[in-house]
């Protein structure tokens, strides 16, 4: 097998590799700024300099040529090479900054040059704390600057588009942003303007950077040149907790990170998944952070004399059970939701099953033509396939209206059917409507009983995306009934770990008074004396996997190890049954 020697250690490899990526994959490091694994390689930042050579092979014997000391002779490239664009080759010898003084010097030199025109405004820069330039300077940069002349001044606080702000002075011209709009989002909205040290990225005059994926440029900007209009100045990164999650705003299920501070989600960024979203996500998915914080239903609501009032959980559960008891199970309609997780839908289905109520129905939330063939799907919901695989009856607008007409008690899970124009107020006239929901809406306003439930940021649960990939979320923010310190799966931020109570204040109002659907169902069941205990997503998924064919073999551990699992689609399952 071909061999490459890096810092004196030999590594075997197969296939084609770029040296920088190869070194990274080994868990080692060479500093860089412009390189991005999913885009073309311009080699323009010149930071990833390494010393590269090749063992000299004696032509006649085919053996390594040896020097007087018996060491293998290396023919070095006359100049240092950028690791990003050089192909790993058999017999290649590489010295990184770890073993070579010249390489260390070159990387330091380069950082000194990058910094001469860079404003040293880290204390007020949003990027500080997650800034490659700051980190690399700390690790490899010079201790001071010899630059005693005037810096180049460029435009600052330029609103490039609705969501992205440019500070051209911070820009180091890595061209990641322009390459992104050329190669990934393909809108070509950005270019580098001017020349030389006056260069900076910009849109064509009079045009907006309204690319549906514009915020990815903020993520990949290696400095604070591009920042998010929305997130700007809201938090320092080290104050936040970072928790993995799944984008619930459409069917693609982009892998994301939720960034929270004091139990508010402050921003959402994409998390790498080569099979789903690579390093990217649409801007629309990031706006969803507001859903987790704002307009939340906290404590159950019950209609009294036509007016919704805050209720207690005991009252709510009692009302819920009374309504079920007082209604012929034939007249009870349970509506599941493509917007809710597999576990939530399952819990509701299991409960209705035990009560002899028909299998839940659901109405897909698909807007034809709204997708872009990339990371925005026609499907507006994260779990349509999950509902299908659970065996829920799929209804269109007409049939759901019919079903509603026949029912007198409607239990609706997390789907704002009125807001999205499926049902009208008239359809619900005279019905008792129970809604389990996360946020207030026109739909919840009409409900006779509103059960506040957890969002994808507050529970661990799974979603099956448009490609039938099942992926799960983690608990990112606390509710009134969870505790970060006690819940080992919840992420701990720097302040949680090291802060005193005075650093890490917690605002009670930010903890929503809500329960996971399965907790509510378990309590309702237990009040009825039913033997049904659903504790948390992990356990529920095990139960699903053992009882439902499409989910066979699925569990959280496997999902975590493989960044999701590809399930057989409904059609594939049918076909396999036929055979």
């Amino acid at each position: 097998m071909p061999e490459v020697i890096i810092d004196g250690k030999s590594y075997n490899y197969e296939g084609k590799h770029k040296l920088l990526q190869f070194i990274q994959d080994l868990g080692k490091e060479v500093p860089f700024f412009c390189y991005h694994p999913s885009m073309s390689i311009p080699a323009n930042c010149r930071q990833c300099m390494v010393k590269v050579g090749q063992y000299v092979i004696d032509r006649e014997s085919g053996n390594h040529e040896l020097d007087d000391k018996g060491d293998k002779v290396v023919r070095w490239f006359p100049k240092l090479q950028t690791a990003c664009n050089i192909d790993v080759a058999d017999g290649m010898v590489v010295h990184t900054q770890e073993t070579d003084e010249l390489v260390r010097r070159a990387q330091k030199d380069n950082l000194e040059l990058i910094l001469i025109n860079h404003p040293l405004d880290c204390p007020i820069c949003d990027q500080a704390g997650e800034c490659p330039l700051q980190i690399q300077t700390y690790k490899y940069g010079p201790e001071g600057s010899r630059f005693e002349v005037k810096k180049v001044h460029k435009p600052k606080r330029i609103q490039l588009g609705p969501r992205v702000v440019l500070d051209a002075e911070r820009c180091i011209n890595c061209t990641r942003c322009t390459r992104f709009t050329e190669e990934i989002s393909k809108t070509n909205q950005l270019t580098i303007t001017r020349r030389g040290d006056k260069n900076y990225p910009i849109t064509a005059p009079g045009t907006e950077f309204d690319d549906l994926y514009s915020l990815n440029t903020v993520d990949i900007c290696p400095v604070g040149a591009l920042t998010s209009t929305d997130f700007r100045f809201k938090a320092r990164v080290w104050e936040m907790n970072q928790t993995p999650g799944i984008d619930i705003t459409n069917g693609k299920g982009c892998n994301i990170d939720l960034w929270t501070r004091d139990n508010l989600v402050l921003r959402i960024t994409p998390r790498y998944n080569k099979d789903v979203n690579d390093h990217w996500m649409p801007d629309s998915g990031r706006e969803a952070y507001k859903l987790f914080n704002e307009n939340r239903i906290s404590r159950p609501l019950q209609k009294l004399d036509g007016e919704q009032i805050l209720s207690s959980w005991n009252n709510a559960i009692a009302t819920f059970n009374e309504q079920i008891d007082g209604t012929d199970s034939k007249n009870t309609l349970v509506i599941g939701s493509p917007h809710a997780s597999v576990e939530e839908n399952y819990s509701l289905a299991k409960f209705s099953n035990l009560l002899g109520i028909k299998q839940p129905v659901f109405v897909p939330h698909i807007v034809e033509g709204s997708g872009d063939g990339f990371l925005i799907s026609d499907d507006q919901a994260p779990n349509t396939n999950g509902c299908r695989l659970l065996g829920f009856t799929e209804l269109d607008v007409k049939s759901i209206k019919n079903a509603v007409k026949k029912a007198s008690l409607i239990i609706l899970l997390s789907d704002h059917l009125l807001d999205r124009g499926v049902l009208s107020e008239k359809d619900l006239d005279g019905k008792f409507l129970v809604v389990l929901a996360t946020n207030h809406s026109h739909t919840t306003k009409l409900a006779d009983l509103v059960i506040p439930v957890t969002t994808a940021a507050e529970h661990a649960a799974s979603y099956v995306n448009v490609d039938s990939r099942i992926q799960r979320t983690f608990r990112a923010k606390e509710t009134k009934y969870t505790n970060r310190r006690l819940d080992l799966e919840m992420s701990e931020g720097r302040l949680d770990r090291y802060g005193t109570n005075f650093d890490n204040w917690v605002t009670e109002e930010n903890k929503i008074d809500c329960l996971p659907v399965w907790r509510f169902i378990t309590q309702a069941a237990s009040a009825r004396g039913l033997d049904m205990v659903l504790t948390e997503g992990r356990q529920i998924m095990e139960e699903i996997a053992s009882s439902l064919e499409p989910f066979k073999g699925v569990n959280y551990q496997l999902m975590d190890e493989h960044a999701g699992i590809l399930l057989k689609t409904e059609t594939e399952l049918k076909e396999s049954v036929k055979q």
Partner: protein
Amino acid sequence: MAYEFTKEDLKQIEEIKSRYPEVMPATLPVLWIAQNRFGHVNPEVQKLVAHTLGLPQAHVHGVAEFYTQYYKEEKGKYVLDVCTCLSCQLCGGYDILHYLEDKLGIKKGETTQDGMFTLNEVECLGACGYAPMLQVTNDQYVNHLTKEKVDKLVETLKKGETPGYEKIGMPQHENI
């Protein structure tokens, strides 16, 4: 003001496109056509070029901004590009530049109030043996400048006459 290419321009643009296997290579030549037509390639003209070629506006903008000969805004009727680079510096290019600054009452990079002259300091124009020199509006070179020659040039230009081609032979030769 709305900018539009004439029919002849469009015909020429089609001919230019046929020289290359793709459309993008036509960016520079079409920016030239536009500048010759409108006197500049301001953002509106850049937009016209982008639309005519079906290329992203940002691309055309980036290209226009990279190359110094494209005027990104309206300039004076005559643009005087005075070379001060190396050989011209040695032979008095700065004297010529400063003389013109005083004469026109503007600093380099500025345009006279009557819109007649824009004065620029430029990099090497490839006329090192004929220094000091200047170029008039991306066109003719005026070589071996003296104050007197500058005076004459300015007078001629004010009259609306542009200088002709100054043929400079090979000093070795008699016939050319």
